């Protein structure tokens, strides 16, 4: 129970929450990444396109005097440099071997203009741009724009090419902001996803927990346990099935109990009904016993047989009634304070087992709290059984010992007979169990040991039979010194 309640690493809750978070993480990261890529592309495209068209438009406003000389090239470049887009740019012009840069006093060309860019613009006239980074890792966009002119309706290159080098610092900042925003948005998103994950896990786990508790209650015998069916999902279906099964089980168990109760009541009724006529018969046979001597021998023997059997029948009926009371749980303890040795001796005396057939080993002055009538029945049954089926001498010993929760007494009855066969031992306390199949008619009712066991149980103790170390059978009764305590 406790082991199941502990949060296991791959328990249902962990797995549900993990699955939830995984889905949330994938969707958050995926959305953020796609949005970011799209936004970054848009930002950069806009900057690049603005730079390209800006350079093209501003260059178109100029009139070139071919061939260009250094002065004219420098003048155009300086003019273009002043009209940079909002971020500002540096413009470089190339014509033949002439080079000019817009940065006053700066270099006439830039290392960011790649050879690839120059060769691509040399032949085919079109605008072009290239994103690149300088030595410090700062991103730049380099726009290349050849100057062409119309000749006979056809565009001809002038041979002059202008380059604008523009830092993408603002764009980089914007892109970094977007990355930060995506990251800062994803983590709280995951944290928020934890809430529905836990709720979903709870909605699944609560019915499961209820089901487990109900099953445990059923196991303890509370067959009227039912689960509240909520919703219409699979778990509700399971709960419904559980309830139906529990109802069917309860009905079956009820029927069985009623049948058993009827059977026990029948046995009790039968024995009760038998007792009244038996009492009369016993009285009659006693009278007849006294008159038997005056009858002829055959009739006398028949009379004694009837008398004997009637006595056995009366014992059987008494035992049946006793066991019926146990079955009906009507048996009660009437506790007395008794001296153990005294109680044992009294039982033996009452049965006239005071000769050498019974040897006792009793502690003097030990007082116990028990039902003296039932203790008498227990001891009498055990000793009677030992004398009948075992053999003299029968040793009766009583010991006391201290255990956790109180003192216990151990009553041991050992006989000197042939002992009990091992296959018989488990059944020795069963009702009407006959150890010897041939000996179908014994003196006892066949209920003596069963009644003994019930009486010991009533005291909260146990009784067991075993083979003695020197042969013979040993019956051991262990029960609390203070019964019912």
């Amino acid at each position, binding site marked *: 129970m406790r082991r199941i309640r502990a949060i296991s690493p*791959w328990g249902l809750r962990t797995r549900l929450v993990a699955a939830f978070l995984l889905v949330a993480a994938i969707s958050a990261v995926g959305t953020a990444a796609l949005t970011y890529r799209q936004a970054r592309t848009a930002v950069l495209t806009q900057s690049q396109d603005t730079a390209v068209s800006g350079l093209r438009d501003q260059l178109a406003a100029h009139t070139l005097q071919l061939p260009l000389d*250094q002065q004219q090239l420098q003048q155009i470049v300086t003019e273009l440099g002043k009209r940079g887009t909002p971020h500002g740019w540096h413009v470089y012009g190339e014509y033949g071997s002439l080079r000019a840069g817009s940065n006053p006093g700066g270099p006439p060309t830039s290392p960011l203009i790649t050879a690839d860019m120059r060769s691509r613009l040399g032949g085919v006239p079109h605008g072009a741009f290239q994103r690149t980074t300088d030595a410090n890792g700062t*991103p730049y966009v380099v726009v290349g724009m050849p*100057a*062409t002119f119309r*000749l006979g309706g056809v565009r001809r290159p002038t041979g002059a090419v202008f380059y604008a080098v523009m830092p*993408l610092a603002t764009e980089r900042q914007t892109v970094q902001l977007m*990355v930060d925003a995506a990251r800062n948005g994803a983590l709280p998103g995951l944290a928020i996803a934890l809430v529905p994950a836990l709720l979903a896990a709870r909605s699944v786990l609560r019915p499961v927990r209820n089901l487990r508790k109900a099953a445990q209650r059923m196991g303890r015998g509370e067959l009227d346990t039912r689960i509240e069916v909520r919703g219409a999902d699979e778990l509700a279906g399971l709960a419904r099935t559980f309830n139906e099964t529990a109802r069917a089980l309860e009905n079956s168990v009820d029927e069985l109990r009623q049948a058993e109760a009827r059977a026990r009541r029948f046995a009790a009724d039968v024995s009760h009904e038998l007792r009244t006529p038996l009492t009369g018969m016993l009285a009659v046979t006693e009278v007849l016993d006294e008159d038997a001597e005056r009858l002829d021998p055959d009739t006398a023997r028949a009379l004694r047989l009837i008398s004997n059997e009637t006595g056995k029948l009366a014992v059987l009926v008494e035992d049946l009634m006793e066991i019926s009371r146990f079955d009906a749980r009507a048996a009660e303890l009437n506790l007395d304070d008794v001296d153990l040795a005294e109680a044992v001796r009294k039982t033996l005396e009452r049965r006239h087992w005071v000769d050498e057939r019974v040897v006792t080993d009793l502690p003097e002055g030990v007082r116990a709290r028990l039902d003296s009538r039932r203790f008498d029945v227990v001891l009498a049954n055990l000793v009677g059984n030992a004398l009948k089926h075992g053999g003299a001498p029968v040793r009766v010993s009583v010991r006391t010992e201290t255990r956790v929760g109180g003192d216990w007494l151990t009553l041991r009855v050992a006989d000197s007979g042939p002992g009990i066969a091992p296959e018989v031992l488990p059944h020795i306390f069963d009702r009407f169990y006959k150890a010897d199949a041939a000996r179908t008619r014994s003196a006892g009712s066949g209920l003596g040991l069963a009644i003994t066991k019930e009486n010991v149980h009533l005291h909260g103790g146990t009784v067991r039979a075993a083979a003695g170390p020197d042969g013979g059978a040993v019956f051991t009764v262990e029960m609390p010194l203070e019964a019912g305590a």
Partner: protein
Amino acid sequence: MRGVGGARGARFVGGVGGVGGVRGAGGVRGAVGVVALALGGALLTAGCGIKPTGVIESGQPAEVSVAMASYATQVYFLSPTGGLVPVPESGYPPAAPSDVLRRLLRGPRESERAAGLRTEVPALPDSKESGPSWRVEQNGDGEMTVRLPFPVRPLSAGAQRQLVCTAAGTAGAAPTTVEVTLFGPDGGLPAAHCPALG
């Protein structure tokens, strides 16, 4: 009861969407998570920042005005990298086609050389400059035959382009539509167009 619980758990997780498996498949599940995380991380890190690109063409070139007379023709020289660079010839009256070619053979002037312009057409000794062998013929179908007083076969590709474009520019029509055949004392070259540049 415990066994039943285990079976339920396995079936349930299967229903979540194949993310996990039965208890024994925890490793597979972990691997899926790791892959997903790695994928996300790769997406985030690889996609961050501004990446350099190659050269990307973007639209038309700039169209500038060039200060020259409407009747001017162009003489084509070569830039240091080998591109054709036109230089207007705006003298009045307009020069005859053969005069324009003579101008080309004389090579770039001082100001043009200062800009790094050069020519690959060999210069001629003065005696041949005004010989009768200069002839530029043009028929109505946009074909032009140019007879030159020097061998044309040894001419470099750059020199041929210079001659073809300069000659085509004198035709009055769009220079790229004119088909020019160069002839010299050593025979002719295949007919050629001035390369179309947009």
